[in-house]
C-alpha cells in the first residue's frame, strides 16, 4: 500500500467558519487533502488540544460534507455534539484555529448503481452526512426523502440543506419541540411506501439504527447504517472498536465475527450487525 494514495492522509487544517445552532456546532475547515477522496459515511480522527494536552486519543467525527475546488481548494465540514471534554474542546474552536486531522477514514455509504429511490434517516448530528449523501443520490437522478429527528429541537441538524435537495423532509422530535412529536422510525414506513424506496440510509445513535434496520427489513428493503462505535485510534490498529457482525449473507446464520468499525465500517448493512451483542446502545 503506497503512502498517500487514495487512503487517509494526515493534514493540519484551518477553521474557516464556526456555527452554533442549538446544541450542535458546525465547523467548516480548509482541508483540501482530506476533502479530495472524502465520501458520505466516512469520518475524520481529530487531535484534541495542543502539545500540552493530556488527551492522547483523537476523536472520531463524521464528515458532514466535503467540497473540492473553489476558493479554498477544498473544505471539510464537521458537526460536533459536545458531550465530553474532547468534543467540548472541539466545539469551542474559533475561526483561524488549527486542527490536526486524519482522514477520510472508514468505508462510505455505498451508492446504488442507478437512480434507486432512497429514504435517508438522520438523528441529531447524523443529519449532517445524510444531507451530503442526499446530494450524491439526487445527482444520480434518485428520488430522495429525508427524515430527521432528535431529542429536542436544539439537537436537530440538516433540515435546510435537506429541504433544498429532497422531495420531502419530515422532522420529528421526541418532545415535539420541532416538527411532529415522535421517533424517526414513526415516519419511516410511510416514506418507504410513498417513494417505493429500494434502499434506506441512516446515521445516528445505535438504538435508532437498530430500529431503522428493523423497519426496513419489514418492508424488504436494505438499510445501510453508519454506526458510531467508541474508538481509540480510528485507523484500524488498536482493535478497540470491534463490532459483532453476522457472517455470510444470511444474517440469521449462527456464525458471527468481530470486525473493526473504523475499517470495515462505519457503514454496515443493518441486518448484519448483531445489535443485541453491542454492549451499550447510546
Amino acid at each position, binding site marked *: 500500500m503506497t*503512502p498517500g494514495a487514495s487512503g487517509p492522509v494526515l493534514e493540519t487544517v484551518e477553521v474557516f467558519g464556526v456555527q452554533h445552532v442549538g446544541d450542535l456546532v458546525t465547523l467548516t475547515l480548509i482541508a483540501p487533502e482530506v476533502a479530495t477522496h472524502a465520501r458520505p459515511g466516512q469520518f475524520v480522527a481529530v*487531535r484534541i488540544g495542543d502539545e500540552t494536552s493530556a488527551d*492522547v486519543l483523537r476523536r472520531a467525527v463524521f464528515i458532514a460534507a466535503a467540497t473540492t475546488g473553489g476558493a479554498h481548494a477544498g473544505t471539510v465540514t464537521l458537526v460536533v455534539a459536545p458531550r465530553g471534554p474532547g468534543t467540548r474542546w472541539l466545539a469551542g474552536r474559533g475561526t483561524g484555529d488549527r486542527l490536526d486531522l486524519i482522514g477520510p477514514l472508514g468505508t462510505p455509504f455505498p451508492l446504488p448503481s442507478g437512480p434507486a429511490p432512497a429514504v435517508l434517516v438522520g438523528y441529531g448530528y447524523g443529519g449532517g452526512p445524510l444531507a451530503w449523501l442526499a446530494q450524491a443520490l439526487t445527482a444520480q437522478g434518485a428520488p430522495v426523502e429525508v427524515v430527521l429527528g432528535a431529542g429536542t429541537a436544539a439537537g436537530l441538524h440538516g433540515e435546510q440543506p435537506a429541504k433544498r435537495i429532497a422531495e420531502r423532509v419530515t422532522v420529528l422530535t421526541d418532545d415535539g419541540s420541532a416538527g411532529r412529536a415522535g421517533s424517526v422510525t414513526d415516519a419511516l414506513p410511510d416514506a418507504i411506501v410513498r417513494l417505493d424506496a429500494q434502499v434506506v440510509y441512516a446515521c445516528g445513535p445505535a438504538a435508532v439504527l437498530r430500529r431503522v434496520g428493523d423497519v426496513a427489513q419489514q418492508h424488504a428493503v436494505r438499510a445501510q447504517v453508519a454506526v458510531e462505535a*467508541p474508538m481509540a485510534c480510528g*485507523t484500524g490498529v488498536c*482493535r478497540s472498536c470491534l463490532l459483532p457482525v453476522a457472517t455470510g449473507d444470511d444474517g440469521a446464520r449462527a456464525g458471527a465475527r468481530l470486525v473493526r468499525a473504523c475499517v470495515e465500517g462505519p457503514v454496515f448493512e443493518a441486518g448484519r450487525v448483531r445489535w443485541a451483542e453491542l*454492549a451499550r446502545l447510546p
Partner: protein
Amino acid sequence: MSEPDTDSNPAVDLTARLGPLRLANPVLAAAGTAGAGRELAQFFDLTRLGALVTPSVMAAPWAGRPAPRSSGTPSGLLSANGLVGPGVDAFLATDLAWLADQGVRVVVSVAGTHSDEFAEVARKLAGHPAVAAIEANISCPNHSSRGQVFAADAIASARVIGAVRRAADPAQPVFAKLTADVTDLGHIARVCADSGADGFSLINTVAGMVIDTDTLAPVLADGVGGLSGPAVRPIAVRCVWQVRRAVPHLPIIGSGGIATGLDALQFVLAGADAVAVGTATFGDPRAPLRVLDELAAALAARGFSSLGQAVGFAHLDDHQRAVRRRPAESP
C-alpha cells in the same frame, strides 16, 4: 507533510544490537499498536522501522473481551481488548506473508492460556525468514492461576519461557515480555534468563480502572484494564533500570509511554538496547518514525557517535562515562 528524515544524522550509528539480533535502528512498533502493518503502511514506509512487533498470536482464533474495551485517561489509555486475533495459521498465511513481502523485520508476539499453547505457536514460526525474533507475552492471564498473569509468578514464567525457547527455532531469539505489576521484577527477570530467555521486552500495560461517575460502574466491560501511554512512562523507565541491573548481560527492548525521541533516550540511558512505540501511534500514526528521527538528533546533540555508546549510560559513574566515550583505538 514531509516524512521525517532519518538520514539527517549520518554521524550516529543507530544499529541496535539485541544479542544475536541486529536491527538497522532501535525503534520498533509495539505489539498490539501497529496491527499487522497494513494500516500504518498508508502513512509511512514500514521498512524504515527497526522492526514491527505483531499483535499477540495465539494457537486458535480469539474474540477477545466484550465492549467497551478502551477509555482515554489523563495522558493515557486504559484498554482491555483481550488478545483478539485470527490464530497462528491465519496469521502465517495472511499477516506474516504480507509483512515478509514488504520486507519488514518482524517480531512475533506469542501468547497462550497454557505453556503448551505458547510452544505450539513458537513451533509454527520456525524457519520463517521474516521472523527476526519472538516476544513471549507472558504478561497475559494464566488461566490455570485464576487469571493472574504468568509474568507475576516466577515458576509460571519459567515454565512458559522454557517451553517457548525449547520449541522455537534456535535462530529466533526469545524475548520475555515483562509486567511492572510484580513485587520483585529483578527476580522474575533472572528466572526468565535462567529458563532460556534471550532478552526482555518491558513493560506491558499496568493494571488500572476507571469508574464512570454517571453510570456509577466501571467503564470497561471487564472492569480492570491495562494502562498505557505517557502516564506509565516513569514506571517503565524504572523497570528497565531494574532489569538492566538484575540481568546485565541480556538485551532489553524498552516501552511504556514513549512519545518523543527524548522519551526514547530515557529508556536507552536506563539500559534499553531498543525501544518500542505504542500508544503514541494512536494519536500520531507516524510516531515511530518521528521518535526515531528525534532520537537520532538527540544522540548527536549529546555527542554520542553510536546508539550503543548511550545504552545504559545513566548507570555509569564519571570514570566509566569517560571510558565509554573515548574514541575507539584504530586497529
